[in-house]
């Protein structure tokens, strides 16, 4: 399984997203570029120009029509995928760390940074998924995080809840319509920030990654921890694969915490765990800096990782991956088949 190395960014990657068909990869980086690539050959389709700060986050709507991006230039921007046109810009008082469309692409949430006297917030914008439509200027909803700032957030199934991960290691569940706080549960170790939150395909459960070196699988409805994956390094990202029951974790000692910069010490590997049995299955090496983001192809054919080293590595799974099965899984498959 030889990965495709996408070397279009000049600085650390911050987020990677596949579109729903799994044929396009969107990547954002601190070099103020949004790139879109063909997933099957790594050819760059284009870039989106306009941001004037490090870009922290990107998301694509379910119909692959528009993308949203959030940046340290305190804006959320909406882009036409096809033409690269900047359709709309919303301004905020602080940097935007995370954006995410809900399941039908009609709403967009943004997580803003806590800085310069401004509290961290989660804002919700109404979106019309149409490149020609006039977008609404006003925020539909603002949730203020006065306890501990939100670092990541996402929409559950039916856009019923907004789930946010906080800097203090807790997870909050807000009502998707009113923005009322329903629960706030300490999930990860206290004051170990939650660094990523990604959804299962049907958005009924999600996976978190945390600096406390663990990743957890949690239900959206009652925030019950289903599984815990223990790694030996602080984690920056976690994703759930489809077709096969795995999760992929990425992380590594942050550059400032490493006394000696050896690849061995940094543990800059993507780690595969079995989603149900919580066992570590394997690791994929390659990056020479911490992995900042991992994303799984929604069609289950591969995954991509983006590192502090500025590279995106796109991997297509090979036969061994699809053949691998626990004895109990095989047993079940034989019974069904």
């Amino acid at each position, binding site marked *: 399984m030889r990965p495709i190395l996408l070397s279009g960014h000049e600085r650390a990657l911050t987020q990677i997203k596949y579109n*729903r068909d799994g044929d396009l990869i969107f990547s954002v980086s601190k070099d103020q570029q949004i790139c879109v690539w063909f997933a099957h050959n790594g050819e760059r389709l284009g870039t989106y120009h306009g941001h004037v700060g490090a870009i922290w986050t990107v998301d694509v709507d379910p119909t692959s029509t528009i993308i949203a991006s959030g940046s340290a230039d305190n804006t959320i921007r909406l882009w036409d995928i096809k033409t690269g046109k900047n359709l709309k810009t919303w301004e905020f008082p602080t940097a935007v760390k995370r954006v995410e469309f809900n399941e*039908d692409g009609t709403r967009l949430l943004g997580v803003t940074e806590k800085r310069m006297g401004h509290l961290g917030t989660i804002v919700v914008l109404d979106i019309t998924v149409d490149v020609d439509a006039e977008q609404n200027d006003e925020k539909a909803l603002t949730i203020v995080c006065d306890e501990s700032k939100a670092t990541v957030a996402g929409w559950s199934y*039916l856009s019923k809840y907004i789930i946010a991960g906080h800097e203090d290691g807790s997870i909050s569940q807000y009502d998707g319509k009113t923005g009322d706080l329903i629960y706030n549960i300490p999930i990860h170790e206290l004051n170990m920030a939650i660094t990523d939150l990604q959804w299962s395909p049907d958005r009924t459960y999600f996976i978190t990654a945390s600096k406390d070196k663990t990743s957890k699988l949690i239900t959206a409805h009652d925030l019950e921890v289903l599984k815990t994956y223990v790694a030996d390094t602080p984690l920056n990202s976690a994703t759930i694969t489809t077709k096969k029951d795995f999760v992929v974790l990425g992380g590594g000692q942050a550059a400032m915490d490493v006394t000696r910069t050896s690849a*061995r010490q940094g543990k800059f590997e993507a780690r595969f765990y079995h989603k149900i*049995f919580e066992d570590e299955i394997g690791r994929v090496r390659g990056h020479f800096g911490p992995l900042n983001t991992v994303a799984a192809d929604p069609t289950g054919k591969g995954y991509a990782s983006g590192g502090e080293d500025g590279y995106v590595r796109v991997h297509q799974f090979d036969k061994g991956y699809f053949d691998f099965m626990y*004895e*109990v899984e095989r*047993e079940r498959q034989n019974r069904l088949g």
Partner: protein
Amino acid sequence: MAPSFDTLRDEDLDEDDFDEEEVDISDLREKYEVQLEQGYDTFVVVDGLPPVTEELKPKLIKFLLKKLNSVGRTKEENIFMPMGEDGTSQRFAFVEYSSAAEAAAAVRQLDGVPLDKKNTLRVNKMTDIDRYGREGRISDEYHPPQIPPFEPSKHLRSFMADPTGRGRDQFVLFRGENVGVFWNNEKDQPENIVDRPGWTETFVQWSPFGTYLTSVHAQGVQLWGGPDWERKKRFAHPFVNLVAFSPNEKYLVTWSNRPISIPDEGHPALTLDDDGKNYVIWDIETSKPLRSFAQLDTLGAPDENGVKKPIKAAWPAFKWSADDKYVARLNPGQSISVYELPRMNLLDKTVIKLDGVVDFDWAPATSQREGVKTYEQLFCFWTPEIGSNPARVGLMSIPSKEIVRSLNLFSVTDAKLHWQSDAAYLCVKVDRHSKSKKSQATTLEIFRVKEKGVPVEVVDTIKDTVINFAWEPKGDRFVTITTTEPVGPTAVPPKTSVAFFCPEKMKGNAIGNFKHLRTLDKKNSNAIYWSPKGRFVVVATVHNQQSSDLDFFDLDFEGEKPESDKDMTANLQLMSTADHYGVTDIEWDPSGRFVATWASAWKHSMENGYHIYDFKGEALREEPIEKFKQFAWRPRPATLLSKEEQKTIRKNLREYSRIFEVEDAERVNSADVAVVEDRRRILQEWLAWRESVEADVAEERAELGLPIDPIAELLKAKTAELGPDEEEKIIEEIMEEVLEETEEIVT
């Protein structure tokens, strides 16, 4: 309405209702009464005097004064001896000393001292007599002290019986603030026996036979043991830093770099005599101190400014003979003091003067020299060249203090003493310099202690500096590590060579000359760890940033022996090489079956945790643990089986191992079955949960009138929108593949 001042009536003032005087606080007063200085602190009461008449009284007082003045200062007029009505003295006297300290000294030193054959002095403080002698303070009736019924304590060696019958060994793990003891389960998660947070403050240590686990606290040392891990002993040495046991677990030495300071109110275990001391030697059985010692402040050689800096105290400062009968301490450059146990008196009341003595070491086993029938313990020592006198290595027999063997050496820079575990050999590693002092070389002077006259063999084939040396336990082979460059504070440690030595084959039971077997060059290794049973050895690189190899060697390899080694008593084979990044310590388990290696957070904070290998070097288990500090196998006492019984076991080993192998296989199988069962359950739970969630979500969607797959609908809409504008194109791609190529020659 509360009464205001204007309307205040006399009744409202409750002054009359409450009289402080009436409250009976005598019980409290008694309980909390402060002992004030009563001015009588300089007085003592001397009892046990003979009755005397008025005429004989001055004579008695004079006689008494001699005794009294031995501890302090008092005068004739300060002694008051009351006379009875019958004209004779009442057999006691009041004495005033010039200070309270002297009075206290008199109580401590004169109480119980015989005055003459018939009479014994009883000396008490006057204040004490007043306090305890007052009526009602002490009950007149005698109550026998309560002696609790004897309770047998639990067996301290119960750990030898593995409940699973597999003869597993235990180990202790100290990580973070927690200390836990575990059974070694080879590849599987070790089985926890006990785990306690904050069990120790600095480190843990096993006693030499594994009976006790030592914990170290600011207040002193505690020993824990038995099946319930109760506290068995306490040794209150404040601010203790280090602990050492005698080889047979009878005595304990504790050391603190802070001199002991006994507080005014006293100390539970130590007395004023221990004030200012650094070392305490304790009897473990009674947990009482035997004797304490102050640190010897020895000054090293003067540096460039001519200032002599104190040498760091060597540990262990007190070294024990193999049978716990003697303990000795070096006074560097001057002498060795040997003390006899259990009285802790200096042997023959004198130190052993040895001019310039640098180091000494007891034989680790009670030696049996040929032709020597009397009991003896041996120690070796060495003295450097002083003036024109040569350097000398000596072997001294205790208690006779006779020098059994001595060896003169020249051009010696340093010497290290290495005993073989049975005290059969003593290897003195001598670093010699050339006349110009520019180049260095090492020779090994090997004393054959058990042979008649203690012959010395010299191994001088070594050109380089030997940085490490280790005897095979219970054997006669050894490993050295040499380096061409001097070891210094360089960034990259120099390359080293590992050399194996063994005796030549001889007829009969004789042991041949030590010969070089093999050298492995261009290594990084710096440490040697022999299996406690001999034969296997791990040569490792520890405390090294760049490499961390572990080489597992077998010296009695059962395969083919190279022709060149046919006269040797060893067949060397590298079995396996492992790598444990950042390894700081290595230890064999007491049975010689497993090797534990660990990276301790005390040394660095990278990848702390431990690994367990089997003796062949096959990695069994890796466990990274944050803030992992210490690993220690629990030692075992010596076997109780006789030589013959051990021989029988060895003979029938095949049969035993067959049984064990069957047991092992069964255990693995049943464990596998359990794991599979567990996974089946987990998978079932997961599928059931998914089913219920999917049903719930579908129901909710139906209620809200939303499509089951919202995105499919959106995509359909999008395609419909695009549909009329764009014609559907069919792209046909034709692939050709060559399946087979054949060439035929047509004639």
